[in-house]
């Protein structure tokens, strides 16, 4: 725990720098993002989006192990999914953000996204441990929903808006989607060469992309 905190201390400045230096924006809403420097949210309000972005940035931080949820555009994945496959979770997020900010203010005096990262981590730990109050039905269930969707956004096919530039897959050392795999790629004495591609960039599945990602 101690070295986790000291590492955070050390990374405080790099994390902020990383967020500003946000890399190539080649998706939809590019113009709006470039204009404001902030991602534009399609389902959540801009305020909710700001809270979400701050949460996922602490769950999978930008640090010495490379880019994190911010660069992988995990918040964009969740925002889009909340008007698609995860629409049933939209209420959970909306109520959860209200409770989260209320709790952050009651303990640390500011909205979650305005807190220093140590305080943000403390708040998130309180959610995970279910010691944070004001959540319905409880803080830990909200935390688990956000955590599981953050992992989905970081490590799912980039067609869904997250895992931008295959950041998540490269973090894990995933050697990439293939449609046919030789015996040599399943050895233990040599690692497969990484080759990153979205499933929907294979010609056989290109037609499915629109249907599966609501046209994005």
């Amino acid at each position: 725990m101690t070295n986790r905190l000291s590492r955070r201390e050390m990374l405080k400045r790099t994390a902020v720098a990383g967020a500003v230096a946000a890399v190539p924006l080649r998706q939809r809403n590019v113009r709006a993002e470039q204009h404001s420097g902030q991602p534009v949210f399609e389902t959540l309000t801009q305020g909710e989006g700001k809270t979400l972005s701050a949460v996922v940035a602490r769950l999978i931080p930008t640090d010495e192990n490379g880019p994190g949820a911010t660069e992988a555009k995990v918040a964009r994945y969740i925002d889009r999914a909340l008007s698609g496959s995860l629409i049933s979770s939209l209420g959970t997020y909306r109520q959860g953000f209200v409770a989260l900010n209320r709790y952050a203010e009651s303990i640390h005096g500011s909205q979650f996204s305005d807190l220093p990262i140590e305080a943000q981590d403390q708040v998130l730990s309180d959610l995970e441990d279910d010691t944070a109050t004001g959540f319905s039905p409880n803080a830990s269930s909200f935390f688990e929903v956000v955590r599981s969707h953050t992992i989905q956004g970081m490590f799912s096919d980039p067609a869904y808006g997250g895992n931008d530039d295959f950041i998540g897959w490269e973090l894990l050392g995933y050697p990439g989607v293939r449609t046919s795999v030789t015996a040599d790629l399943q050895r233990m004495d040599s690692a497969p060469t990484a080759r990153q591609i979205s499933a929907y960039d294979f010609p056989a599945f290109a037609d499915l992309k629109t249907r599966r990602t609501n046209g994005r």
Partner: protein
Amino acid sequence: MVVELPKTDVVIIGLGAVGGVAALPLAEAGLTVVGLEAGRWLDTREHAPDELFNNYRGWPGSVQKANREIPVHRTHSSAPDSSRSSIHPMMNAVGGTTLHYWAQSWRLNPWDFKVVSETTRRYGASRIPAGSTVEDWPFGLEELERYYDRVEFEVGVSGQSGNLDGTIDERGNIFEGPRQRPYPMPPLRGTGFTQMMTDAARQIGWHPFPGPAAVNSVRYQNRAACGYHGFCNRGGCHLDAKNSTAVSTIPRAQATGNLDVVTEAHVRSINVDRNGRVSSVEYLRNGDTYVQPAEVVLLASYTYENVRLLLMSMSDAFPNGLANNHGQVGRHYLSHAQGGGVTALFPRNLNLWYGLPAQGVAIDDWADDNFDHTEHDFIGGGNLWVFSDRRPISAASMGTFGRVPRWGSAWKSFIKENADRSVGSYLQKTTLPYENNYLDLHPTVTDPLGDPVCRITADYRENERRVSAFIQDKMEQWFREAGAVDIVRHGLGTMGPSTHAYGGTRMGDNAETNVVDRWGFAHEVQNLGVLGASVMGTSGAHNPTLTAQALAWRTADHLVEHWGATPID
């Protein structure tokens, strides 16, 4: 609108693993068959290698009948309902769950058919666990062997035989019963990881072997060999190398001209005539109600839906549900003890990123009665299975062995190092039926049509828990021998909705304790057959599909042989 259709010889409710198999011998024999399927056709172009779609979103593109009627579980009759699953373990489509299942295609071992008599003979009757309603099957493995063989060839199964007509072959499962000929295809290939686990097992004197799979190891029936691409776990095959009934038996049955496949048909009741024989099946399709009269009805949906439809089909002759005048529908339910896994951490990458759950190595030394139970306080055992199957979301969701928190920089560093160093195991264990484990209709929870969903009242008992602890010891021993540096044991869980659900319409000679006779036809309704694991009274320690398919073929064969004769006519 109600549409009365022309009469057919046989109507099959559900064209999945078992209905899809039974259709072939019936159609080939010249009977006219209508196959009613709640789902639709899915083809290779829909099976993109997409973990999110397959494993986390429950196939949203397919018909969701099953997901609208997910069974509700409680542990015992005075317990509150458990929290409800969000996804049904099975799916609707032509071919059913064989589209995305693991395709492990095991035969049961000889002991599984004779649990009561063999336990009594070897250890005494007192060793049958108290409260269990287990019976011997009405026949042994030798009766089912030729149907196992038939399905292995007609559907297509890869594997290594271990007992060829009594001659033991150590490359295969030395504990299996005699088989008349080898599998039609060699086993799926090994990997660096399976070789490591095979070597470790031999080191401690066990008998490792590659498991059987309804997946093409070589080109078969004009369909491609497996591509080992890693999206087979709840994923459909883009190469048609997984031998679902949608690509094997169903198209061949259609080619006879005698099978009419009706998709998106939501069956709501089986009707009886004044003599108490089934006369027709009623289903909804695109908002209209259709009545399909038939000489014979074969009920071939999943265990929960088989029981549910029988209980929903009430009439003057069967006031408590069809074929339930003895109160046996829903009884003798069990779901396989598949929980209680063991996960290991190794000090090196295992390269499990590709492959499929059926590409693995098995140990049967501790299954069934393959070892002496004299000094143990349980009967039965488990099959140990490790395999090559890893995708990014599930890899990142790995446990952290108590070493780091579950998020933040320390977690990120941990998964960066260990995403390919952890491996689970699949431990299927003997599970018995008990007096107080059963299925019925939920009194208040319904599907959107207002029909009650199935309710599961069931929990594991001492025998299952003792087997589970014993098998976890064995699995840990195997992982340690292979070099694991950390081990986590998971809880057994309870008996909620499962992909391995058995019983509810058990098969047996005694009409007082069984719903169907030894041929699969209802004791109380001779022109009603039931297909699927709902007729099985024991689980063994292996996946049920091949056994359910062999039984389905046998029921269909029986129907063909006796067509026009009493009592079927």
